[in-house]
């Protein structure tokens, strides 16, 4: 009917420097994206994108960011993401880039995608693992996430999905 429709951009902050992810903050990242849009798309772009813009979810350990913007202008925001080349925190600049994983219409679809993505990432981590202790820890996480997947089955993933994602992260 009559409601404001949004697009949720699920992005991953990729960086060589391990301190970069830890210094992620939602306000800092939000301002950085806004400045980049203003640089790239001018006053029109900055005004159009900043109405419904918000950083909805931020995970400093995995570097996953969920950005929200209005449906009419999500392409302006999306096209500005590759132009973010560094994160600034307390005078330190960390070079990084934002990798867009998924564009969804609701937070729920992004969450579903994120859970599947994290499961696949765990398996990839397991393959590339070198240390035995790490390998055991990851194997435990993988089996736990598989059990949870069987449990929930056809249930709607709402809050349980968030916990799953948190568990799958450890």
């Amino acid at each position, binding site marked *: 009917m009559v409601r404001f429709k949004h697009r949720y951009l699920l992005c991953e902050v990729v960086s060589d420097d391990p301190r970069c992810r830890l210094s992620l903050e939602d306000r800092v990242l939000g301002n950085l994206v806004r400045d980049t*849009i*203003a*640089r*790239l*798309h*001018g*006053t*029109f*772009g900055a005004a159009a994108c900043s109405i419904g813009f918000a950083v909805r979810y931020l995970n400093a350990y995995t570097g996953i960011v969920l950005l929200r913007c209005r449906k009419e202008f999500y392409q302006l925001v999306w*096209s500005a993401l590759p132009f973010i080349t560094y994160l600034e925190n307390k005078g330190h600049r960390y070079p990084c880039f934002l990798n867009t994983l998924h564009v969804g219409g609701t937070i729920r679809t992004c969450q579903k995608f994120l859970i599947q993505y994290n499961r696949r990432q765990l398996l990839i981590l397991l393959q590339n693992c070198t240390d035995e202790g790490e390998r055991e820890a990851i194997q435990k996480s993988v089996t736990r996430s598989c059990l949870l997947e069987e449990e929930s089955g056809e249930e709607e993933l709402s809050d349980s999905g968030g916990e799953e994602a948190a568990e799958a992260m450890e």
Partner: protein
Amino acid sequence: MPAPATTYERIVYKNPSEHHYMKVCLEFQDCGVGLNTAQFKQLLVSALKDLFGEVDAALPLDILTYEERTSSAILRICSSGLVKLWSSLTLLGSYKGKKCAFRVIQVSPFLLALSGNSRELVLD
């Protein structure tokens, strides 16, 4: 007796012209400000950049003719960028601190149309 069926043929002529041509004139509030061609182009690009950012400042814009005395020019822009250029010219307020305004005299997808302007026609 039924009338013979006539066949109709519909021809849709979508504007095939890729470029639009604009005749513009730059007016300053106080006289005595002259720009050469390069400065004029720089002004246009900075107007686009202000409003629409770096992406649209790189639109393929050409100045076909420029008269320094009257500060009038004929510009060529790709058709998809016409609205952006026109709106950024509208919102341009000043050049190096001096107030100015762009007057758009004529816009046409065909360059030949800019050669004659019925508004400037003087009837004897």
